[in-house]
């Protein structure tokens, strides 16, 4: 194709978008939302649904008149499960596309890869994913669940039900390491002991030796913090070796819907604390699921990160409309009031002003032998309390840092 031909095509594509945008909303200036999520690569199975959830929420908001009468425009890039892509595209959406807000990231490694860029260019980002907790950064809003929500509910329940010897099998990067630290801390606080720990490099798919190490340690249950599709092979291999131990997790099922992908009964007796999965049987959850399936009939599963992404957009709409601006400082003044709440598909959620994290309804999901899900317990309104108690207060000071139990915020 000739050069001028290319240019013509590009111009046509551009005008096409413009016509589309202006058709619905007179001459209003759109609010631009950058969407950086993995639509290919190792994490795609868990994250394509996040993009769809954002598209669904954006469509609903635009149909209902946009945000303050301004249409919402999505600027979407596929980050390919690759941390360097996050950095590249984060620079692009902030510098070239000049978006008002970015929804970005699945793995904690990717979040820590892009977060300095958001800080550097003074951007505003939502991380709509459960993670190991501790990010105290005024440029970020986190709608995913954190360890004090997922582990301080799950681990004591498991220890009461099955016993006090715990084995952790975790992905070997910041998420797995810090989450394992949380498990260790909570097990100790509840008078249990760690039977063992192993960290698995991302991308590893063969677990024979790890399975044997677990059998040797004889734990009462195994905490699996495995990430990515390769590591999910563990369940099938453990089941075929007849390990037959109860499992507990903050990431599996709720993210990668392993109970749908593997043949029963390989995930039998898996317990997961999650703030949403599509099996939750409440009218709000069913209505959300129905809307989702109507727009994306082939969606394999609607997971917790999809719900986080969906509600995040509505929270953003509320913040902008109350602040009457997309300016981050104005929005943070609204967050500081402490009453940014909404009725989400999972139940009521509120943003905590100190940490800019979110309170959640936490569901304990149990996978049965036939891979059906039951909910033995539900905890309502669990707050993301740790950062605030440890000394992070974004209404006063913005350290732009991540803290862990062994590396808490400095005392003033």
């Amino acid at each position, binding site marked *: 194709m000739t050069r001028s031909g290319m240019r013509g095509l590009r111009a046509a594509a551009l005008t096409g978008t413009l016509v589309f945008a202006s058709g619905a909303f007179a001459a209003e200036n759109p609010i631009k939302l950058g969407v950086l999520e993995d639509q290919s690569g190792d994490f795609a199975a868990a994250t394509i649904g996040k993009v769809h959830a954002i598209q669904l929420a954006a469509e609903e908001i635009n149909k209902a008149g946009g945000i303050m009468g301004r249409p919402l425009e999505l600027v979407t890039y596929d980050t390919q499960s690759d941390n360097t892509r996050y950095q590249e595209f984060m620079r692009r959406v902030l510098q070239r596309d000049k978006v008002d807000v970015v929804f970005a990231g699945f793995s904690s490694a990717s979040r820590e890869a892009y977060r300095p860029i958001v800080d550097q260019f003074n951007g505003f980002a939502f991380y709509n994913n459960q993670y190991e907790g501790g990010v105290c950064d005024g440029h970020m809003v986190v709608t995913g669940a954190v360890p004090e929500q997922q582990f301080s509910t799950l681990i004591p329940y498991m220890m009461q039900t099955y016993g006090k010897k715990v084995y952790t099998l975790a992905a070997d990067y910041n998420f797995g390491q810090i989450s394992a630290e949380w498990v260790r801390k909570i097990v100790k606080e509840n008078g249990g002991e760690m039977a063992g720990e192993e960290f698995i490099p991302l991308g590893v798919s*063969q677990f*024979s*030796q790890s399975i044997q190490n677990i059998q040797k340690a004889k734990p009462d249950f195994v905490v699996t913090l495995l990430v990515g*599709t*390769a590591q999910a*092979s563990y369940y099938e291999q453990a089941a*075929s070796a*007849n390990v037959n131990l109860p499992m507990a997790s903050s990431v599996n099922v709720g993210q990668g819907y392993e109970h749908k992908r593997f*043949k029963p009964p390989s995930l039998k007796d898996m317990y997961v604390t999650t703030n949403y999965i599509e099996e939750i049987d409440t009218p709000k959850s069913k209505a959300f699921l129905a809307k989702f399936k109507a727009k994306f009939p082939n969606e394999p599963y609607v997971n917790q990160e999809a719900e986080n992404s969906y509600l995040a957009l509505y929270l953003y709409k509320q913040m902008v409309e109350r602040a009457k601006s997309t300016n981050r400082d104005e929005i943070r003044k609204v967050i500081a009031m402490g009453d940014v709440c909404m009725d989400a598909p999972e139940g009521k959620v509120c943003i905590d002003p100190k940490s800019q994290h979110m309170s959640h309804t936490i569901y304990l999901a149990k996978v049965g032998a036939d891979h059906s899900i039951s909910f033995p317990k539900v905890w309502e309104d669990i707050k993301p309390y740790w950062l605030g108690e440890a000394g992070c207060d974004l209404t006063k000071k913005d350290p732009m840092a991540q803290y862990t139990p062994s590396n808490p915020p400095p005392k003033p």
Partner: protein
Amino acid sequence: MDIATLAFSALYQFGDAFAFLVLSACGLAVIFGMMGVINLAHGEFIMCGAYVTAATVHAGLPLPLGILCGTLASAFVGVLVELLVIRHLYERPLDTIVATWGLSLIATQGTLILVGSTMAGVGTPFGSFQVGAYSYSIYRIVLFVAALAVLAALYALFNWTRFGVLARATIQVPHMAAALGVDTRLIYSLTFACGAGLAGLAGGLYAPTMTLVPTMGATFIMEAFVTVVIGGADVFLGTAPAGGLLAIVKSGMTSWQGQLFGQIGLLIAVIIVVRVLPKGISGFVLRERT
């Protein structure tokens, strides 16, 4: 814990690591080790075998037939790839890297678009057995036996059959083979298909034990390449001892210090072998004859 239990568990772990290395590497040993085509799409041939196996099992075929279908499908795709792409690049080995890398990207993304982000698993057959305090998966023993069978079959194929002799002749001195009336193009095609089929077989055999996703080939490719690189050009004399050596290092290090050290140990072993034996293990074994 008694000695017999420990010995069995060490043996089982060795066999498991050996099977994974050998089955991942066999197809590549034919295509890269023997033919000299650096095939970066090797993982995608494995993925193709696994996907076809799972799809046919979902459609109602028994697993062994499903694996056969996966193997044949990969071999068929191998013939097509050889005809359309590789055939034109035998004189330009470095260009095959780019071409096969491109193919692997197309295959991964194409599968994601056409089939979706995941495929339902088929479940591991046969159940488990108990030795001492440990329980083991019977299917892992099947994989070990399959690895040995594949090695034996390759040895027989390239040493005792007419096709094997023609293939070796064609690859060593192509113009001489052609002068003697061998259809070298056909031989190249069939050899490439054989390698692709072996990759498909590995995918089919591992399909019941793994997550089925478009990127699954990537988990095999590192092990496949290091085994072939230190094995050298001979499929049987290279791959078998290389698989054995690396399996000892990997299973030993993993049981001692965990998966991370297993991988570190594997790569250090590879660096040492490549430094000491630049032509690989088979180059060392065969040095008397050349």
